[in-house]
């Protein structure tokens, strides 16, 4: 059971990507997929929508799985392993989660389950790079996410021109020199194959 997280700041397109990517990886039922969705608020919004996709969905609300409800996340991972035995678990943390802490929490769940940790895919919204990296606002949070990424997907590339995509890629490269950077449009499908391949072939 491989656990892969689709992280990134609020509104960067995680939910849309997760739905499309899960279908891509499931490959018409050849692989068993479970989704874990985490929202800070008490009212689950995304989990309900994902359930409509027909996937196995676990919704964790009321806090962030990288800190406040890490234990709940760990238990969820263990229960999925025991009860559903998926090949892949795709995790959507809150938009404020710290990817390396999500990995730690997942490993807690793996103490009694046979799991492997997949890549931390972090989305970076190409429509608002300056806003996200403004150090007086969100910069510290967003740059931490970027630094923790194994793969960075420049998202919403359908909504900006090529120069803006390149600019976003250059900015995130300043914070993470090792991560693979790819372009993503969940609407047009650009980058979906690449991300699916990375997840399937990833070895921790």
């Amino acid at each position, binding site marked *: 059971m491989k656990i892969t997280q689709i992280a990134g700041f609020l*509104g960067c397109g995680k939910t849309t990507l997760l739905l499309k990517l899960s279908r891509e990886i499931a490959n018409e039922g050849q692989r068993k997929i479970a989704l874990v969705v985490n929202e800070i*608020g008490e*009212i689950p919004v995304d989990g309900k929508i994902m359930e409509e996709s027909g996937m196995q969905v676990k919704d964790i609300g009321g806090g962030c799985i990288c800190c406040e409800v890490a234990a709940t996340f760990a238990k969820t991972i263990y229960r999925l392993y025991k009860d559903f035995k998926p090949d892949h678990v795709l995790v959507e943390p809150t938009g404020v989660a710290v990817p390396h*802490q999500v990995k730690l929490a997942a490993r807690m769940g793996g103490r009694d389950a046979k799991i492997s940790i997949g890549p931390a895919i972090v989305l970076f919204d190409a429509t608002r790079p300056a806003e996200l990296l403004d150090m007086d606002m969100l910069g510290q949070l967003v740059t931490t996410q970027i630094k923790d990424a194994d793969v960075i997907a420049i998202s919403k590339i359908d909504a900006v021109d090529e120069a803006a995509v390149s600019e976003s890629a250059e900015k995130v490269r300043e914070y993470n020199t090792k991560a693979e950077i790819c372009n993503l449009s969940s609407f047009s499908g650009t980058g979906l194959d690449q991300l699916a391949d990375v997840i399937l072939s990833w070895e921790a």
Partner: protein
Amino acid sequence: MADPIAKDGSGCYTEHGVSGYGVAAKLSRKELMNEDFVKTMAESMMVAIAQNCMDLGARCIGHIKSHIRTEAGTIKADTIGPTHGSYSKGHLTKAG
């Protein structure tokens, strides 16, 4: 291995001043509403909430999202801030 659970009960985002809120409401209208009407209303509501937050001192909008469930289907609308506009999707199968 570091313990990811904060000892003081605060979240990873607390120090960044990020907070989340949610609300559910039941809306009704005497006149029939078609898909365009519901989408326009949802998008306007998203931008209005975002603008109100900014007017009240928010410095950045993370993600405001809504699901409007009707007997005829669900419309989803969201925004990442008033300057970014709002986007909606989904279909209604009949006037609801």
